[in-house]
């Protein structure tokens, strides 16, 4: 039987390597596939540029237009909250910073743990609310495929297990940490093959959108 | 009749060592020393972070628990040319000094003493006479008749319980034991006192390194920061504790260890006539007296003495390819270039080849001395077999008139020789080796105060740096680097050689004191120090109770478990002899 320490070392060692390998491999394939398709030449006389409006759109879509906010405040608020929470917990928790530093060599200051802890709790609530919304809102329920629910779980679990490990709600700790790392690895592995790719491709999509519109003189 | 005597395990040492020796009548003709345990540490270290290496290397030995950690961080610091803050240098000196004294005292009382002290004989001592004896040689306060009476009662209760525990099956009553009962009782009392004392002084390592055994080190300094205003750093309270511990060490060395050594030695002066062996001595030198890196400031200077010639001191270069080399002619290893070549540690190889080198099938009665017979290699300096350790250090110090501690050493050695009525040649012996250990403890104990004072003065001057972080990150290292870390461990000169490539260990070789001393024969058939010493004038009174072998082997303070085989050179008949 595998001990919890073996399990932790497995998740921190070989499985992590496998996960980042699949992740990098997968995401690069996805991006290359996208870019390699290219765009055909546009003969129409442009009204505006593409690059700057494209970049502006990349940024602008973080803030919804007022109409959308009025019609779907729940989506906007909950979606924004848990996304920000997820990113804060992912990138500003000191142990995570150390992982990134060790893996890609980049580091930045983190936030005090109680702050990250509170953010994580809010993120968990946000994700639960998002799930309930998906189950009850007609459009979301209509659009949702099994993949959407799997992805929700894949996103929710690392946050939940991280919270559990931090608060040491499950013992022994190597097990709790190992499970957290495992769920994060599942997230990484699943990412390139599911709609989780939007983490990377949304930037590309937004840019293309902004460029398409920008060329016609509209800041989308 | 010739026979072959086997002692396995040799106890009261660290690790597992086996020696085989051929008997010529009563005399030992040929002895073979064999390390019987291997873990392959040098293999394990490959590919790891050089900054982690000390923790692995430290586990080479838990008795001289500090030395491999120090040699390892020094090797990395040498390879990367990391300069150490003065405070770190002085703190390391204090830790090394404490280790040396702690180790020597424990060796003398707990590992070596039972070769000279008959515990059972202590039961017939007169406590009052013991008290008189004790008071005649020292001002140590625990010397009242009542104290010794209590002690005797305690031993009696223990012996009468019938469960002799660790004292079971000792060679009690062997005629080689020459101490009067009173001296035996006093020594047994000090055996127990030394246990309590060592527990106390080990605290020094805990203060700077968090624990003992296996205190912590860090490449580029020491882990403990200095901040007089912080509770969680080396502060005034901690320094006061260190001062106390240094006094505790000095007091015990002055009032117990030195007098006991002289008292016991005076009954065994015949042991100044045997156990010399090689006559070649090597010291890397260590412990700058002022925390600098200047070789001239070393408490123990560097040098090699050949053929007992104290007038000529040869220099040693640890990096030179042709100086220090390890051979495996009689080791259970294989080199790519075959079993006859010698390799400098930078190019050292560690390939376990027990079967290939004709290791005997287990269980076995004897090792195969024609081929490999040890897990130790045979290190040589310019192809010379060398002895390392306290005797080597004291001799090199004795032969270095400009060394800071020369005068003190000369005085100590000369007065000891005159007290015991021995000529200078008496140093080259089993007894000389044991006496040298005691004398250098005294020198180190005095130096501890010097280092402590320097540390305090440095802190007072406003320098509290303990760690050099500039080369901490592996990204700041050169692609390739190599270095040697050396130190004078309690058991002798210790060297670690590291080759770093791309931030990882590409090769790691440790040449430990016991490899020098306990290593097997080289391709020329030249024996190691143990083997040579055992071949020097050793007669066994009773091959079944080879206490003579233990005395000489223990005088080296072995750091491995051992076994001794005696072989009939004519018939080759091998007789397993119970050693009792």
């Amino acid at each position, binding site marked *: 039987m595998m001990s919890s320490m073996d399990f932790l070392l497995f998740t921190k060692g070989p499985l992590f390597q496998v996960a980042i390998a699949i992740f990098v491999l997968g995401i690069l394939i996805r991006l290359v596939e996208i870019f390699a398709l290219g765009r055909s030449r546009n003969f129409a006389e442009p009204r505006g540029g593409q690059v700057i409006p494209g970049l502006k759109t990349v940024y602008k879509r973080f803030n919804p237009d007022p109409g959308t906010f009025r019609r779907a405040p729940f989506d906007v608020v909950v979606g924004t909250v848990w996304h920000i929470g997820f990113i804060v917990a992912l990138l500003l928790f000191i142990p995570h910073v150390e992982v990134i530093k060790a893996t890609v060599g980049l580091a930045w200051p983190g936030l005090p743990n109680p702050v990250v802890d509170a953010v994580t709790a809010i993120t968990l609530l946000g994700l639960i609310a998002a799930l309930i919304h998906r189950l009850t809102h007609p459009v979301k329920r209509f659009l949702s495929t099994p993949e959407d629910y799997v992805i929700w779980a894949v996103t929710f679990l690392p946050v939940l297990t991280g919270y559990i490990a931090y608060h040491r709600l499950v013992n022994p700790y190597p097990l709790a940490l190992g499970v957290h790392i495992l769920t994060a690895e599942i997230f990484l592995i699943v990412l390139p093959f599911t709609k989780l790719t939007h983490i990377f491709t949304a930037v590309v999509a937004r840019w293309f959108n902004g460029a398409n519109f920008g060329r016609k003189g509209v800041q989308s | 009749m010739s026979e072959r005597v086997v002692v396995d395990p040799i106890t009261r040492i660290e690790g597992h060592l086996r020696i085989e020796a051929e008997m010529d009548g009563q005399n030992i003709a040929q002895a073979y020393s064999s390390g019987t345990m291997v873990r392959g540490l040098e293999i394990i270290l490959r590919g790891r972070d050089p900054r982690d290496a000390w923790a692995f290397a430290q586990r080479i030995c838990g008795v001289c628990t500090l030395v491999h950690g120090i040699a390892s961080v020094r090797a990395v610091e040498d390879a990367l040319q990391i300069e150490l803050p003065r405070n770190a240098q002085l703190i390391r000196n204090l830790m090394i000094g404490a280790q040396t004294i702690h180790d020597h005292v424990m060796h003398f009382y707990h590992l070596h003493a039972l070769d000279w002290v008959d515990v059972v004989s202590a039961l017939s001592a007169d406590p009052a006479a013991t008290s008189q004896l004790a008071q005649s040689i020292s001002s140590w306060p625990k010397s009242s008749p009542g104290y010794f009476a209590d002690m005797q009662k305690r031993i009696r209760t223990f012996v009468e319980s019938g469960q002799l525990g660790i004292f079971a099956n000792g060679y009690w009553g062997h005629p080689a034991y020459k101490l009067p009962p009173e001296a035996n009782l006093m020594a047994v009392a000090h055996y127990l006192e030394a246990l*309590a004392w060592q*527990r*106390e002084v080990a605290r020094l390592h805990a203060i700077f390194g968090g624990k003992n055994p296996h205190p912590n080190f860090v490449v580029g300094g020491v882990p403990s920061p200095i901040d*007089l*205003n*912080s*509770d*969680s750093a080396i502060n*005034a*309270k901690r*320094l*006061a504790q260190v*001062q*106390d511990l240094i*006094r505790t060490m000095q007091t015990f060395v002055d009032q117990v260890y030195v007098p006991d050594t002289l008292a016991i030695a005076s009954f065994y002066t015949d042991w100044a006539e045997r156990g010399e062996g090689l006559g070649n001595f090597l010291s890397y030198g260590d412990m700058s007296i002022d925390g600098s890196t200047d070789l001239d400031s070393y408490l123990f200077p560097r040098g090699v003495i050949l053929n007992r010639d104290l007038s000529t001191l040869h220099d040693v270069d640890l990096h030179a390819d042709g100086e220090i080399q390890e051979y495996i002619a009689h080791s259970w290893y294989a080199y790519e270039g075959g079993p006859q070549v010698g390799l400098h540690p930078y190019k050292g190889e560690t390939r376990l080849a027990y079967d290939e080198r004709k290791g005997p099938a287990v269980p076995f009665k004897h090792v195969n001395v024609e081929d490999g017979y040890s897990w130790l290699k045979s290190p040589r300096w310019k192809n010379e077999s060398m002895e390392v350790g306290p005797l080597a250090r004291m001799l090199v110090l004795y032969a270095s008139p400009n060394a800071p501690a020369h005068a003190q050493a000369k005085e100590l050695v000369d007065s000891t020789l005159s007290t015991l009525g021995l000529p200078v040649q008496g140093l080259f012996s089993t007894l000389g080796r044991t006496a040298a250990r005691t004398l250098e403890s005294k020198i180190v104990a005095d130096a501890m105060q010097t280092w402590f004072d320097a540390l*305090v003065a440095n*802190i*007072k001057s406003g320098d509290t740096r303990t760690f050099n972080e500039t080369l901490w990150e592996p990204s700041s290292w050169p692609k390739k680097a190599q270095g040697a870390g050396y130190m004078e461990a309690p058991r002798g000169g210790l060297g670690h050689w590291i080759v770093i490539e791309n931030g990882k260990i590409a090769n790691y070789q440790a040449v430990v004191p016991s490899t020098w001393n306990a290593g097997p024969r080289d391709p020329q058939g030249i024996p190691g120090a143990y083997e040579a010493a055992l071949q020097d004038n050793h007669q066994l009174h009773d091959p079944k109770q080879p206490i003579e072998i233990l005395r000489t082997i223990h005088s080296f303070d072995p750091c491995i478990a051992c076994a001794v085989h005696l072989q009939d050179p004519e018939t080759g008949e091998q007789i397993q002899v119970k050693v009792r």
Partner: protein
Amino acid sequence: MSGLDNIPIQVEPAPALARDFGNALPILGEIRHAVARLRHDGEPSCIDLGAMPFGPGDEARLMTLLGRGEVSATVTALGPTHVWETGYPGVWVVEYQNTEAQRVGLQIEIDEVPKILRTQPADLDDTLAALEARLREAAGRHPDGASDSQ
């Protein structure tokens, strides 16, 4: 032996209390509950400080907080045991040391009298036996003793 005074270091004016790593106050709370238990149910308690995750200074701070009271005693058995009442009557500190005067245990006892100061019933039996023996011996030697009158 040497103390702080012997160290030739200028100590910066330190705060009056040792640095608190946060583990002293919770123990005060535990003591309060124990005192209440003693008062209401007559049930004594004992807290083993060896099991506390004290940081440097925590123990000193706790001792400062507890203070010293009117009673102190030393029991000499297998090395000294120092017992003192804190500034809070009924709250005792018991420090066990071995024969080398090294601490082997530190406890806070909440009781009217710490157990180690009480005479043990078995010892009372021995006392009885010893006194009777002594008396018998004394009587045996006495000229008017019953044994002689026979």
